[in-house]
């Protein structure tokens, strides 16, 4: 076990040294992988940010419940009791027709119109905040319609649904992009390892002749693919982070005009580590495929 670990450690060091000996080639490979990964990664970051904004906007979807004109105090009390017991109703607020009129009077543009009115045309209303998502909201709406003394139920979920499906579309696009570019990463590594095997053909041949096992000969190439993939992942994170910093300058400006302090936020540590692991794993996969394909061809004669 300690021998196995030591050999891996030695191979790791040798592989790093080999990469450092060809800094230009290494850098180019890392940039290719980094850019390829940065595209879906950047898209994912934007989606995540948009998603959290949408969450804030639609976090408390409201349903307005307008009562029939002939509803009296007893009806209202009965209704209130029933609403309080319904699942999906998180908060309940009663706005009487007098309160509603007062509200209208306070709004600047309408005060003249309102004071010209002879009678109060407004109905009593309940404003309900729901806890559930779009589907539960609709279910709740149907239940509310079935209640007595209800004139109208107003649900503002259509645009929430539209945003949701738009975000879903974006997620799908990012997923497809990520899959394609992951294949690209595997292909890039495949080719790098193929070239590396060709450059080290003599060494591989001699090693086989003097008693190296296949797993020993394969090991450095696995390490190479793994390290290169990981470095590519690191490059992708750096690229996306830089882009975010640049974009945030403009976004902050824009958001300030709207009285918001919205800005793009970066991935958490666990997301970053997951990406690095994923990139390294893809590099390893490319190396595995390349080694399986090309190493058996080198047999000393």
């Amino acid at each position, binding site marked *: 076990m300690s021998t196995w670990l030591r050999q891996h450690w030695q191979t790791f060091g040798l592989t790093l040294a080999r990469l450092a000996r060809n800094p230009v080639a290494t850098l180019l490979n890392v940039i290719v992988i980094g850019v390829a990964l940065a595209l879906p990664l950047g898209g994912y970051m934007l989606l995540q940010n948009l998603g959290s904004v949408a969450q804030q906007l639609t976090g408390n979807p409201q349903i307005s419940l307008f009562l029939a004109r002939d509803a009296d105090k007893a009806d209202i009390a009965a209704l209130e009791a029933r609403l309080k017991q319904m699942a999906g109703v998180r908060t309940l607020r009663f706005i009487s027709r007098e309160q509603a009129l007062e509200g209208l009077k306070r709004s600047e543009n309408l005060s003249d119109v309102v004071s010209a009115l002879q009678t109060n045309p407004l109905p009593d209303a309940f404003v309900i905040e729901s806890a559930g998502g779009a589907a539960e909201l609709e279910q709740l709406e149907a239940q509310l319609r079935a209640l007595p003394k209800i004139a109208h139920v107003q649900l503002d979920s259509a645009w929430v649904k539209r945003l949701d499906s738009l975000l879903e579309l974006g997620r799908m696009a990012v997923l497809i992009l990520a899959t394609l570019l992951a294949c690209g990463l595997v292909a890039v590594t495949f080719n790098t390892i193929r070239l590396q095997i060709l450059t080290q053909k*003599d*060494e591989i041949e001699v090693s086989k002749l003097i008693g190296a096992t296949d797993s020993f000969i394969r090991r450095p190439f696995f390490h190479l693919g793994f390290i290169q993939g990981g470095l590519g992942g690191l490059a992708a994170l750096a690229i996306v982070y830089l882009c975010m910093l640049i974009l945030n300058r403009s976004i902050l400006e824009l958001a300030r005009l709207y009285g918001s302090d919205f800005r793009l936020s970066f991935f958490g540590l666990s997301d970053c580590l997951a990406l690095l692991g994923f990139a390294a794993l893809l590099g390893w996969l490319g190396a595995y495929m390349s080694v399986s394909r090309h190493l058996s061809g080198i047999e000393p004669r």
Partner: protein
Amino acid sequence: MISFNQVRKSYRGGHEALCELSFTIESGEMVFITGRSGAGKSTLLKLIPAIERPTSGTVLVSGQNIGSMRAAAVPFLRRNLGLIFQDQKLLNDRSVFDNVMLPLAFTGHAHKDAARRARAALDKVGLLDREKANPITLSGGEQQRLCIARAVVNRPSILLADEPTANLDSSSAAEVVDMFRSFNQVGVTVLIATHDEGMVQRLNPRVLKLKEGRLEP
């Protein structure tokens, strides 16, 4: 130690390199294989480390049957053999020292231990002061000695050399042969393929003479 029994080796296309070859080499022997180019010397040597497999007959090395050996077992067979190749196969992308370190990389030696062994091997062939040099800058004789150091660094019990004195001047060749003799004196079985009749006559060792793939009596 090494035993050939009715060994035949034919290559694709029907060329028969070895034919009905039977002989035994005991542990600690020093044997020369002679014959003209194409007589089958290299093929014979390649059968022992399982670089080639016999078409028929059996090749036994330290009791192991080469013909039926699994591919996964071959590296462990080769670690017990010291191989000196006709085309040397030195790696010019690394130093003399690192060339000798190569066989120790996969036997699980700690670096310090491996370095000590590599220097001991280089010392034995008189190249210790050239350990940082690139093999390409060495003279022909020095390159051949480096091959020997790489072959013996794992302390093999059998040493196989294919034309080790080809392309060497007579004094370098004599040095190389003396080295083989000193390894043989400490118990290593040595097998040398050569067409250098002068060397054979000088040493008067056991000789297997090959002609067109068969042993000449």
